[in-house]
């Protein structure tokens, strides 16, 4: 059913339809509306789940680990400093192969303290062993939750997943969303079948100690699961497209890219702005296109290389920076295009909630055409 809904409430509604059995979360701006809505649903008996009120994000995700290990479908949501506080727990969840799904309402990292959007938080957890999916709009972020549970719980994968969407830009915006019914979601997402679980009759411990004789092999297995998640994602997204008619099967998605000279690469809500800017530039005769990255982990290197092979210049918009290097997305794109000779220019944009508009996209395309890049775009040099 189509309804106009706030991004956070759409996520809460989608999560409710996934029938999580345990929700363990700590409120933090701009994620608060999600967990507030879920808490109300549990309190009002609309959702049959245990809602664990915890005293920190460290405990929130630890609660999910315990509940998931005991065989429950679990959910959490966080952002920025909250995610940073989960750092250790994130690695443990992945190493224990627990398919927790967590929404990230992307927000900048302090210091300086900022409640506004960029993607530094989840990007900084890229090595933790979590699947990472980024949504462009509210429909997509809702739908990606159904798909994320399917992929995470797939016995080929068994890894936790972030579903990321931009704080405020999407969390606090109202958009029309086609929300499926419970019956439809039940048909798409059957009850959680744990690969193994804590059971007093057949006791096990998870995440045990490994000597140097075994540790590398465990890490290898997590990486293999990440690699298998590529196919598992396509399978889950195809099943979703067949049932609901919305197609997310691409780990990347091109927009007017086929004959583009300058290809922009971006993740998240900025893709909407970029598409509008591209339409205007195309009307002026510029051959510009967009490659949107939906799955950042696993990173779709082959798909990126194939999609960008015809471009003469690639301009990456990074809402993050790996300080002392470049933006994380640009580094991955450069790796994917290594040996192709296609120049990849990086633009650090929109950190800490700085607006980025269509005219900025057009200016970045101009810079890229001149070969000027690997820079912070839109710096206020007068305050430096």
């Amino acid at each position, binding site marked *: 059913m189509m309804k106009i809904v706030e991004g956070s409430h759409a996520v809460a509604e989608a999560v409710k339809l996934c029938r999580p059995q345990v929700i363990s979360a700590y409120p933090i701006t701009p994620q608060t509306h999600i967990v507030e809505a879920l808490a109300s649903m549990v309190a009002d008996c609309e959702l049959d789940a245990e809602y664990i009120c915890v005293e920190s994000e460290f405990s929130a995700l630890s609660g999910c680990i315990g509940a998931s290990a005991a065989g429950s479908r679990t959910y959490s949501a966080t952002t920025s400093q909250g995610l940073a506080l989960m750092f250790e727990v994130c690695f443990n969840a992945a190493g224990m*192969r*627990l398919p927790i799904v967590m929404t990230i309402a992307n927000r900048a990292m302090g210091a300086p303290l900022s409640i506004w959007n960029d993607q530094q938080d989840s990007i900084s957890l890229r090595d933790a062993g979590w699947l990472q999916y980024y949504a462009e709009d509210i429909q997509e972020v809702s739908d990606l939750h159904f798909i994320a549970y399917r992929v995470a719980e797939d016995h080929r994968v068994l890894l936790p997943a972030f579903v990321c969407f931009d704080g405020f830009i999407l969390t606090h915006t109202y958009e029309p969303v086609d929300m499926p019914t419970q019956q439809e979601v039940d048909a798409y997402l059957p009850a959680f079948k744990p690969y193994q679980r804590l059971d007093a009759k057949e006791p*096990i*411990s*998870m995440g*045990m*100690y490994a*000597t140097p004789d075994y540790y590398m092999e465990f890490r290898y*297995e997590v990486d293999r699961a990440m690699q298998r998640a590529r196919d598992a994602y396509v399978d889950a997204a195809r099943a979703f497209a067949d049932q609901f008619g919305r197609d997310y099967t691409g780990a990347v998605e091109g927009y007017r890219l086929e004959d583009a000279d300058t290809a922009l690469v971006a993740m998240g809500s900025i893709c909407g702005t970029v598409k509008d800017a591209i339409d205007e530039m195309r009307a002026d005769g510029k051959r510009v296109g967009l490659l949107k990255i939906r799955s950042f982990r696993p990173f779709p290197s082959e798909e990126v290389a194939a999609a960008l092979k015809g471009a003469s210049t690639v301009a990456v918009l990074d809402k993050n920076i790996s300080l002392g290097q470049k933006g994380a997305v640009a580094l991955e794109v450069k790796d994917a295009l290594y040996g192709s000779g296609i120049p990849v220019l990086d633009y650090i944009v929109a950190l800490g909630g700085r607006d980025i508009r269509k005219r900025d996209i057009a200016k970045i395309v101009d810079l890229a055409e001149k070969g000027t890049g690997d820079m912070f775009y839109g710096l206020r040099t007068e305050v430096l």
Partner: protein
Amino acid sequence: MALRVGCAAAPGRARDNKTGSWRVFKPIFKHETCTKCGLCETICPEGCVKEDKDGFFTPDLDYCKGCGLCAKECPADDIEMVQEEK
């Protein structure tokens, strides 16, 4: 021991973990000048030196961590520590 998904393990004893893999030096009990005094068994912090049926003492290399105390204390100088290639 094959890996289990999620680094899972059934309940067990510490003895199941073959901690001898931590070792760099391995004791060679030569049994040449040995007087069967048993000081090696007494001194071993791991408790892995045992007396065999002939009264000689040998270490259980599944658990010996190669600390070298037995070689250091052996009154007959009958134990040699050698670097172990793995």
